[in-house]
């Protein structure tokens, strides 16, 4: 397996760096070449990730297309990549969102204003490389490196091309995330040295076989502390309430593409980390902490929705809605049922699509009006009918409209948490309240921008959508509808892996008393 040349995963991982290197040699003035090189790189990466999907064997729960090179064998550290049901679709999501992000930046006013266009796209490609790395790498140390590397380009994207308070936001983002990752670093060093290897599959196999064990006797024993070390890093990234306060600032200040990538991919690194590392490496601690984490998740769902409702700044509204939506994902994960975790995985994709779409829409309005204040709009449906129609679909997708993607995720998460052994039904009921609130704040958002009288002079002659704006919105709408109507192709890949993962963590997965003979549902 290791001697068959380059794995497709490696190719997908390093393509952005190839583009990065090419970009370095293009003179600053050749704006067109810079843009298209960046776009071309991301599109080719996206295409190859689709090839990767096509070659993926959904029935096999194990890692596939593995590539492994030794680096520091004496410590058990090495380059180790592969895909399975947990990360395959995340890689595709990353390459998709990056293509969207790059294409949407083509006319960005802020880049023309502040210049340094080449630097911008260099950071974008660097970010793509690091994010794919986070998802595919199976070695704790290398994972940590990629995890930290994602911070740097994002920091500069916000800090250079952001809004007025960009420095504050960038620093807050950087420090907050950094503080979390330090704890993770300590925890993963301990795990690796105890296990004698940093290769995650081997550690998990050891834990399963009982050769490696972290004792858990009480909430603050070794396993718990290690669990928390990882968890806090992931929780900040997700973000879980009350560690979310970096997010609204970062989103509001980030340039449009930055927000799209932040919401679309970066947040998912946290929830992905929970599924990939927390559950299998610390199964007992995960079960023990699940109710507390689920409680935070549910608070986040309600809290995010409620705060979102109060916002007058479009971007902030969407940012807080992210807090609410990510709460669902965490709830699904810590329900520890296969349907819940599968729901979380598809919901990560859905959230990337719908929230990414919302940020794009907000960005387009911002480009035209240079304000993010909801009160500055109204009646835009008349001025920009196409944007109105597309926005409606995206808004509905975000609020979980059946027939669109958001519903699939929310419904499966509700099913999963309802059938959970580790969580009570109360979590599900309160989470469902979040769906109601989502309808309220999302409709409020839509109505205040697009409905009502077109009474502001400035709004009457808004420029039409540019070709690249349509080109980024259309795939989002298509995917929202596609996943909503036919979720199977998007959910099946994770089926086998999640099934085996859940079997490792909790053997028995239902508490809700069931009818003995009723479940003849094929």
């Amino acid at each position, binding site marked *: 397996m290791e001697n068959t040349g380059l794995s497709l995963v490696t190719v997908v991982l390093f393509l952005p760096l190839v583009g990065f290197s090419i970009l370095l040699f293009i003179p600053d003035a050749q704006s067109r070449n810079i843009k298209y090189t960046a776009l071309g790189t991301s599109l080719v990466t996206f295409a190859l990730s689709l090839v990767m999907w096509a070659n993926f064997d959904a029935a096999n729960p194990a890692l596939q297309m593995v590539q492994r090179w030794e680096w520091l064998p004496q410590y058990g550290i090495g380059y180790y990549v592969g895909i399975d049901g947990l990360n395959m679709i995340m890689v595709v999501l990353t390459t998709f969102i990056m293509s969207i992000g790059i294409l949407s930046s083509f006319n960005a006013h802020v880049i023309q204003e502040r210049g340094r266009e080449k630097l911008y796209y260099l950071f974008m490609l660097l970010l793509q490389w690091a994010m794919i790395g986070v998802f595919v790498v199976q070695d704790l140390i290398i994972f940590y490196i990629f995890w930290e590397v994602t911070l740097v380009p994002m920091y500069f994207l916000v800090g250079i091309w952001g809004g007025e308070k960009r420095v504050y936001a960038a620093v807050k983002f950087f420090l907050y995330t950094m503080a979390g990752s330090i704890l993770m670093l300590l925890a993963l060093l301990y795990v690796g040295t105890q296990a004698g290897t940093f290769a995650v599959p081997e550690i998990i196999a050891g834990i399963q076989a009982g050769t490696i064990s972290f004792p858990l006797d009480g909430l603050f024993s070794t396993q718990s502390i290690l669990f928390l070390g990882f968890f806090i890093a992931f929780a900040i990234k997700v973000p879980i309430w009350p560690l979310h306060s970096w997010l609204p600032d970062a989103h509001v200040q980030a340039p449009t593409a930055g927000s799209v990538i932040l919401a679309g991919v970066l947040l998912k690194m946290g929830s992905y980390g929970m599924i990939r590392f927390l559950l299998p490496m610390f199964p007992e601690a995960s079960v023990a902490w699940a109710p507390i984490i689920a409680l935070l998740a549910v608070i986040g769902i309600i809290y995010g929705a409620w705060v979102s409702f109060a916002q007058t700044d479009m971007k902030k509204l969407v940012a807080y809605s992210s807090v609410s939506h990510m709460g669902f994902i965490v709830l699904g994960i810590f329900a520890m*049922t296969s349907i819940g975790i599968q729901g979380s995985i598809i919901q990560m994709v859905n959230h990337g699509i719908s929230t990414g779409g919302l940020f794009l829409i907000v960005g387009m309005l911002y480009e035209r009006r240079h304000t993010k204040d909801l009160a500055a709009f109204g009646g835009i449906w008349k001025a920009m009918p196409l944007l109105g129609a597309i926005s409606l679909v995206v808004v509905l997708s975000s609020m979980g409209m059946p027939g669109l993607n958001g519903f699939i995720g929310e419904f499966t998460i509700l099913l999963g948490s309802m059938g959970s052994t580790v969580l009570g039904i109360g979590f599900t009921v309160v989470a469902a309240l979040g769906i109601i609130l989502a309808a309220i704040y999302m409709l*409020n958002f839509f109505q205040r921008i697009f409905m*009502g009288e077109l009474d502001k002079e400035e709004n009457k002659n808004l420029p039409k959508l540019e070709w690249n704006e349509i080109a980024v919105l259309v795939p989002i709408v298509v995917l929202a509808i596609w996943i909503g109507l036919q979720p199977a192709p998007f959910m099946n890949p994770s089926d086998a892996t999640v099934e085996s993962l859940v079997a490792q963590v909790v053997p028995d997965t239902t508490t809700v008393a069931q009818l003995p003979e009723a479940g003849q549902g094929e």
Partner: protein
Amino acid sequence: MDLGQFLSDANNLAWLIPVGPLLAFLVITLITNKATLVSADEGGHYADHNHPAYPGLKVPVVADWSRVASIVVGMSGVIAAWLISIAVVTNAAGVADFGKYVLESSVRWMDTGAGGFSMGVLVDPATVAMLIMVPLACTLIFIYSIGYMAHDPRQARFFSLIALFSGAMLTLVVADNLLLLFVGWEIMGLCSFMLIGFWFEKPSAYKAAVKAFTTTRVADVIMLLGIAYLYAVTGTLSFREIVYNVEVLEGLAELPAIIIPGLSAAGLIGICLIIGTIGKSAQFPLHVWLPDAMEGPTPVSAMIHAAAMVSAGIFALLRMFPLFEAGGHPHDGVYTPPLLLMAIAGSLTAIFAATIALAQNDVKKVLAYSTISQLGFMVAALGIGAFVAAFFHLLTHAFFKALLFMASGSVIHGMEHGEHHVHHHAHDDEDEHDHAHETPLLAAESHGHDAHDTASHDAHGHDAHGHGEHTAHAPHFDPQDMMNMGGLRKTMPVTFITFLIGGLSLAGFPLVTAGFWSKDEILLDAWYGVTNGYGPHALVFVLLAISAFLTAFYTMRQIGLTFMGEARTEEAKHANLGRGVVAFTMTLPLVVLAFFAIFAGFVGVHPDFPIFGSIFSPNGNPFFDFITTSLAVKPEKVGFYWVPVLTSFAVGLGGIGLGYLMYWRKPLVAGQEDPLVKILGTTLHTTLKNKYYFDELYTIIFILPAQWFSKNVAYEFLDKGVIDGTLHFTGRLFTWIGDFIKVMNAWLIDGFGDGLSEMIGRAGIWFRRMQSGSVQQYLLIVALAAIVIVIVFALSTGVLQAAP
């Protein structure tokens, strides 16, 4: 897969029913809906009270070819659905022992670790009954919309939306599982949002749209929880596997529910699903959205109130009825919690809404409350186990209520026409138009009409008047206010006759109207329980009988105010539909529906009813026998009683008679107060007119606190104050620590390291300065040096430390 082969199987044909309208939606949305930009202030078709004009702005107006193409596509879609429905119904009729055997087909939709979902279609007797009503009603609404929306700049969009609406409704009807039903259910919710807010510039319209969506959404999420719990318990959502399966039902009835002690799983799931319907079918206390939904164009009202959305709520209850009944037996006086909930909520809603309808002056609002009330009849009937009667009333109500809404739409259209006439035309050409009014409404298209109508819509814009809350600049005229009408029977005879037929059917005019027969069935079932001393039956019987009386009365009031007497305004005098395509498409559906409003009732006559029973039901009640074949537990037939029949006669005729006396014999003249005000007293009348102040109440107890909480508590206090505050404090703390370390650093480490080199450097400069050659400076330095030496000497020898 080979499509021909697929469709040759009768089981699969039902898949195609929703396809037509859904395809029409896609085609119109993506292809045929094309607007041309027209400068609004230049006139044209654009501006009217629903479409404010904006000086200097080019506004999209649907192109003529697009208007026609969209109508053609939309009509094709809905007619295809209708024809396929007929084919499916025919197929179903050919199935031996239909009901026990049904047409069904399903595909795997989603795999998850624990089982997964299938999606499929199911044609059983309940579906067949709906397939006879829904596609027909939808088709008629489409035809009506050709005329009603003929001058709207967004007619193409309107057709795409009602096509989606029909597609969603048909999906819901043919669904074989709760999940697909829920999908159709929610898409309808979306369409109603879009259609109520169709004139999205109007604050009243978009507010009503948001209100409708969020109110129903509250109920829908509770329903979704019920669905999720049902799946968690049974592992399936298929109707056939749950409600037509006695074992599952018994199991659910015996299984204790989570959270709530004393309730069975069936009870909890049932209550969740019923709450869904309470939202969708606008039952108390979630009824508030429906009257506001009148902001949409009138065909939408018909769609929402008759053919689709609210019927969907009742249909879902009918579908899941065996689950609600599981563990109880209302025929023997054993009620389950879901049944009690329905009996109480339904009968209260029926009377509550009927009283509000008494005091409404808006022609559509009366019908809106009437709808809420009639849906209450159905829900209450289900609560006492009268499954068949409820289903029967659902079908007859759909026909006569669609008729009434469309007829009221014609009235409004006619009033707008009349208004234009008054405001725009000079008096000298009035004779000509009066002449035109006398010609038959169904006359072929005449020359000159279009120009007239076009001009009329211009005029609306210039007059800037509006419906409802829309404040006008010029003298405000409300074409929906019945106080402005009167005497319309003269100028709009076809509308009058069809409205009368629909109204009598709603009022339950004995023997010849459909509404009488279905309402009578409900009362019969309720009376059966009264004779056995069952409390809920008695509650339902009494409240519904009173509501039926009120219904008859307010219907006559409505017809009296609208059509009887003399015109109370100039506008009413000139109200008519004009002639031509517009008038034809707006009248044809009324005539067709009037037919059903009379004859649909004869399929469900009680076999023991004197004379009528032997004519229409010689072999037992045909509707009853057909609809119950698929039920696992068949409802018992109720014998014939005279009391409920006489009650039906009494309340129907009594209400009609009273209404006749008050509003037909002595029609209101212009400026006269509604005689009802005197009878009820001003306070009660005002309370009713303001709908018992429910909107205000909800604003005070839900909306304002929620807004205040989200802004002040959640955002300002918690998020910015506590959470960000803690963070900033931590940040500042670290900054202080950092500063402290920095200072320490500067003193100790830098002070030593940097200080050394710096000192050397400084010393160099200093020494250089010393070599300035200035004598005074040398002296100064020497003096300073001497002082320092003295101090150091003193310190080291303890001179200065002598003091204790």
